[in-house]
Every structure is written in C-alpha cells, then in structure tokens.
C-alpha cells in the first residue's frame, strides 16, 4: 500500500514537471500571440521589418546548411575511412561547438574577422567587409551547427557493409561510380537528418550571431535578434508574433526529422 502511494507520487511529479516546464510555456506563447485577436497578430507579422528578418534568417540558414552538408559529409568520410595521425584528435574536436558557449563562439568570429584581423584586412583590400555583414552571420551559423551532419553520417558509414562496395568494384565500377551509386545512397538519410537539425539550429541561433551581425534592421537583423530587440523595447506583440512564426517553422522541421527517422527504423 505504502509502495503504491510512492509510485503514484513519483509519476504525477514527473508528469507535472514535464507539462509545466515544456508544454505549458509553448502553448502559452501561441495563446499570447493571439490574445489581442487575429487582426493584431496579422498586423504584427505583416510588419515589413519582421518579414525581412525571418526571410533573411531562412536564407542565411540555407547557406550555412549547404556548407555544412558539403564539409560535414567530407569530414565524416575522412574521419571514418582514412587512418592518419591526428585522426582521434580531430574526431573529438568535432563536438567542440556543442560544448562551447555560443557567446564565446560569437566572440571568436568577431576577433578573427574583425577589421584589425588578418582576414578582415584581406577582405577590405579586396573591397568587401565580412564583419557585421551577411558572411559573418553564415560563418557563425556554420560554426555552431558544424557537428550535426558529421555525427549523423558517421554511424551510417561505420555500419555500412563493405561487401556492397566490393561487389561494385568486382562488377567493374570505377571508384567515382561506386561512390555515387553505392556509398552516397547509404549516407543520404544521415546527411538529410543532420542537415535538417543543422538548419533548425541555425534558424534559432542567437548568441553567436548577435555579436557579429551588426543587427541593422532590414539588412543584417535576423529573426531571433529581432525578437530580442522587441522584448527590450517592450513590444510583446511583435516579439510573440515572430516567435510563433519561427517556432512553427522549427517544429515542422523537427517533426519531419522524427518522421524520417521513424520510417527508417520501421523498414
């Protein structure tokens, strides 16, 4: 009898914690954005600066994701398939962006690309600036999302049956052909789910970007920084409307990743 009370208590405590901490706030933000009615909501999201910020974020996140797909797939391939001195070190360095505070990551980009740095001077001489412009935002996003694709592709490459590749070679396929027809299709699910996670993280990124973006409205102001600005200037309506827009986008991505992974386990 005693025991049953205990387990009932534990269950309700855990479920209550879960609902209060995760579910309640997210419902709260949707509720709040509509609290002043649909008209006010549409008013807030049709603000051109808000749209600009969201579109800019999506555009730059797409760039960052494409870079990550290319670089990440290559790195995963090299780290799994080749043996060379320093491989273990590089492999453990992959997780560094996850372990490093994002504000520190932003500071790093700031220092490396600033006007007084080597890269900054070089770019200046070539006639363009990186810091406080779009390239700096993309670089910050790439840094923060770097591990996703690598960590999603690596297990697939490790699991892959060597006999498939050997069969392709035996049948006379060239190295390039084997890669495109046999290896790449095997890596593709990992690349896709890694890319989607990287994309949603890039959409949400704040800490690394806020320091390097310059945050000029309509030019380098991304969505999360826009939300922060609205909070600072006490415009809760504008902040929640853009939050809902960004949140819905990320939720769709998250659930499609889950769906893809579940289907893969299913078959």
């Amino acid at each position: 009898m005693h025991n049953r009370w205990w387990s009932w208590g534990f269950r309700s405590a855990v479920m209550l914690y879960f609902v209060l901490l995760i579910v309640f706030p997210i419902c709260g933000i949707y509720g709040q954005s509509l609290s002043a009615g649909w008209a006010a909501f549409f008013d807030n999201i049709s603000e051109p600066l808000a749209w600009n910020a969201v579109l800019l974020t999506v555009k730059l996140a797409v760039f960052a994701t494409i870079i990550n797909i290319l670089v990440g797939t290559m790195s995963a391939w090299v780290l799994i398939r080749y043996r060379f001195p320093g491989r273990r070190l590089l492999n453990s360095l992959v997780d560094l962006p996850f372990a490093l505070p994002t504000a520190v990551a932003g500071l790093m980009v700031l220092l490396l690309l600033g006007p007084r740095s080597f890269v900054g001077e070089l770019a200046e001489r070539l006639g363009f600036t990186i810091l406080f412009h779009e390239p700096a935002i993309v670089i910050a996003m790439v840094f923060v999302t770097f591990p996703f694709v690598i960590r999603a592709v690596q297990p697939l490459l490790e699991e892959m049956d060597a006999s498939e590749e050997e069969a392709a070679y035996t049948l006379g396929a060239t190295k390039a052909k084997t890669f495109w027809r046999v290896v790449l299709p095997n890596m593709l699910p990992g690349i896709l789910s890694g890319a989607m996670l990287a994309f949603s993280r890039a959409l949400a990124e704040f800490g690394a970007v806020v320091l390097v973006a310059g945050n000029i409205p309509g030019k380098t102001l991304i969505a999360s920084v826009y939300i922060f600005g609205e909070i600072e200037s006490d415009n809760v309506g504008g902040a929640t409307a853009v939050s809902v827009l960004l949140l819905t986008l990320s939720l769709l991505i998250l659930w499609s990743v889950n769906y893809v992974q579940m289907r893969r386990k299913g078959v």
Partner: protein
Amino acid sequence: MRRLWIGCTVVVFTLLLIIPVVRIAMGAWNEGWSGFAGGMTRPETGHALFMTGLIVVIVTLINTVFGVMLSLYLVRATWLGRKLKQLLNSIVDLPFAVSPVIGGLMIVLLLGPDTAIGALLGRAGVDIVYALPGMVIATLFVTFPLIVREVMPVLQEIGSSQEEAAATLGASAWTTFWRVTWPSIRWSVVYGVVLTVARAMGEFGAVLVVSGNIINKTQTATTLVYQDVENFNLTAANAVALVLAAGSVALLLFMEWAKSRKEVH
C-alpha cells in the same frame, strides 16, 4: 585523392575549430598578464562566474533526477498508452527546436511581474523573472532533452527481462533500479550530465532575456562576455571567454572518456 581529402578536412578543422580557440587564448593575453588578471579580478567577473556555477549545479541536479525518471517511464511504464508515449516522446525534443530567446520570452510572458502568477509570487516576496529562479527555469527548459535522449536508447536496448527477473525474485522497485537498471545506464547518464553541464554553462539567449543582465546581481559569465563586447572591452571579454572555453574543453575531454566507457558498458 586520399591525400587531398585528408588535407581538406585538416584545413577545415584548423580554420573552423583550432584557430578560433587559439585566438581567444591569445586575445586574453593581449595586454599581458595584467590584462588577463585585470579582466578576471573585477568583482563582476567573480560574481558572474559564481552565478553560472550555481545555475549549473541546480539545473544539473534537477534535470538528472527528472530526466532519468522520465526516460524510465517513457520506455517501461505500462500505465501510459502507446500513443500517449509516442506523443510525449516527440514533445521531449521541443526545447531543441525553440530558439533560446523564445524560451526566455515564454518565461517572461508566463511568470513576469505583469502576469497573475508573477504578481502573486511578487507579493509573497519571491521574484522569478530578473532573478535567479527565472534563470534556473530558463536553463532547465533548454537542457531538458539532453539526458532523456541519452538514456532512453540504452533502456530500450537492454530490454526489461533482467528487471522482470529481479522483480520475480522479490526485489522491490527501488532495489531493482539500483541493482539492475542503474549499472547498465550509468555511463549514458554520466554522458547526458556532461552535455547538460556544458549547455547550462553556455546558455546565453534564454538567460539574457530572463535575467535582464543586471550587473553583480543576475549577470552570468556568458552575459558578461556579451556586455564586455558591447562596451568594447575586448581584453576582459577574452579573459572570461577563455575561462569558459577552458571549461568546455575540459568537459569535452571528460566526454571522450565517458564515451569510451559507455561503449564497453
């Protein structure tokens, strides 16, 4: 071909990961030892590091307990329907999808001084927003999925037959957990805890919104770095960032070690 690919990867890693860390370290010593010491010995630096440490400890304790229990329920519980479990399972990931700024905004909206709950607690003398409790809640929210995501796959993998055997032999739920389940999930919990510590230490967006970044009161190490950069005090920012980066690298090394333990069980 092979040389080329390895070379490319090494170059990418050097440019993207190694040089930035080295640059932070160099930046902190820009003005020599005195610059670094000057940045570190300010009273606000000490206070900010203390706040970060405090939040890390509280958040890690709470989320470890609740995270392990929730994973147990989501994998083992018979009192939850299959559909409900699936739904809860996909909700666990939500904090990953939420921008930290939005996470902070949620807490301000629900518990801020203008809301019913916030006003009630405020009258009782408990401040949530712009004070420690709000910062802890924000960090709890952001780090919630980390432990659950590490522990659940292991629980699924080991199956429940050993636990059932223990229960049949008359062990209580408590004994079964500590003697049978815990030894096999131990290293995944450790790994999840390390991730939680890293994330709690580095959380910036959510904490910045909730804390109001009040110097010597609610300022954490990451928001101090932000403020120093905004004030063009780069040497001091570098000094604090170097401490944080050293912490992350230490955690990373520990993570590698935990990972190798996790693989052998």
